[in-house]
């Protein structure tokens, strides 16, 4: 699993790739947090397009990044969410703290 971080103006976009589980989460968490604290964006966007698996550890990762983003006053959007990942997210009430954009909503 890996994360690629892109900055554009006041946006910080973290592109996740691979399988996000308890084993993979710690270095991803650290890289995204470092980037948030260093660049203090207005918007944090986590992109799930290239993510092939996620379990509840992914929820922990998103909620944790929401906290870090809040510390610098940034909002959180999670985008390119597959139907399978959405089934996990739906259980968590993440939609109350973040904007969720499903894969199907991203096109057109």
């Amino acid at each position, binding site marked *: 699993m890996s994360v690629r971080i892109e900055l554009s103006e006041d946006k910080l976009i973290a592109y996740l790739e691979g399988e996000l589980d308890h084993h993979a989460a710690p270095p991803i968490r650290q890289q995204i947090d470092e980037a948030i604290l260093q660049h203090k964006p207005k918007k944090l966007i986590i992109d799930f397009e290239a993510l092939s*698996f996620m379990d*509840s550890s992914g929820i*922990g990762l998103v*909620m944790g990044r929401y906290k870090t983003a809040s510390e610098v006053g940034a909002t959180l959007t999670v985008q390119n969410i597959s139907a399978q990942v959405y089934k996990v997210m739906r259980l*968590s009430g993440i939609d109350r703290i973040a904007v969720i954009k499903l894969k199907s909503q991203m096109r057109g």
Partner: protein
Amino acid sequence: MKAVNQIKLTLPSLSANEGFARVAVGAFVSQLDPTVDELADIKTAVSEAVTNCAVHAYGDAIGTIYIIAEYYSDRTVKIKIKDKGCGIENIEQAMQPMWSSLGGERAGLGFAVMQSFTDGVKVRSVLGKGTTVTLKKVLSQRVHI
């Protein structure tokens, strides 16, 4: 009813084995030609149960995780994930969504995921002895042309 096929896996509770366990069980279940969603559901539920063995059962130590997966002629899949770790004091509370005994970034959603992604979750646990989680999933009938 007798299982048509069965596998047993024994592995150390290293976090690196979370991925291996779900992929191995997924490969076994693939013999039944499940739908993409059914397979993803099973892998996610197995990942939750195995991760719990790695995170909670043995504390900072490394113990053993025992997995038995089997399927029946009616396309029922049963997966037993067992540890000989600390056990769960209050199973009802543990299965409550958003409840976690650990801080950090645990969402407390593992059991909720297992429940919503399968057709049945049974938990047996004895404090100081260990925990067995049994997941059941009934696969849809597939029509082959």
